[in-house]
């Protein structure tokens, strides 16, 4: 077994061992994005749905001028793939927008999720 396969296997094991700390959610991923100047909108060549396990590492709410909530999460790259700011994820019935990628090791990706709230 290659080292890459070994790492991915052990990551899968780790995500299973932490039980309900890793939760499955449905990501809507948009790729092949281009801007259409005629319609003044971003268009995406493909939209697909991926269910991936994530671990939420941080949860922040700022209420200084309005209510914005942010989550930082990590996921297995082999399961989720690349993410972009056009992607969304549904967590407990609420739609979160994927924010900037924080880290991508090739095996684990860490990114932020954002939502406006009251």
């Amino acid at each position, binding site marked *: 077994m290659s080292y890459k396969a070994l790492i991915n296997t052990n990551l899968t094991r780790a995500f299973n061992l932490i039980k309900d700390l890793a939760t499955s959610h449905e990501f809507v991923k948009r790729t092949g*994005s281009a801007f259409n100047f005629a319609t003044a909108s971003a268009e995406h060549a493909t939209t697909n749905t991926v269910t991936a396990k994530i671990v939420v590492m941080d949860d922040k709410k700022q209420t200084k001028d309005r209510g914005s909530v942010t989550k930082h999460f990590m996921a297995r790259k082999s399961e989720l793939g690349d993410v972009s700011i056009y992607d969304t994820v549904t967590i407990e019935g609420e739609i979160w927008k994927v924010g900037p990628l924080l880290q991508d090791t090739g095996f684990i990706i860490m990114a932020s999720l954002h939502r406006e709230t009251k």
Partner: protein
Amino acid sequence: MMGKFTDLEKDVFSVFDGVAWKAENILTVPSNFLGSEMGTEFISVSVIASGASPNTRSISGVCLVDIFIAAGGGPRRASIIADKLDSYLVGKTIPSVVNGVTQFFASSLAHKGVDKANPSLHRSTYTVTFNHFGAF
């Protein structure tokens, strides 16, 4: 009914949506677009409508175009792209898609150096002033 800011944006976007500009094969995106594959040469267009205006339907300002080229090759390619932008914008009058007119005036180019976010790219900033006159 659209307002002057939307009409102005439509005028500017109509230049980059034209067959002639598309034939230049320079990837063009507006501000607040984050495409996944920008490559090593592209421009980003921003419309800054913050100047004086003679009436409530008109506005003046600057069209700012960030020109990104591969770092390390000197400024010539950015200058060539700026000259192309000049040929489509400077001195041109664009009838508004809805109503009114947008006129472009003088341009300038500043080579800003290596891009902070992506050091493999060099960024130059092209600016051209405009007046947008909305019809009553």
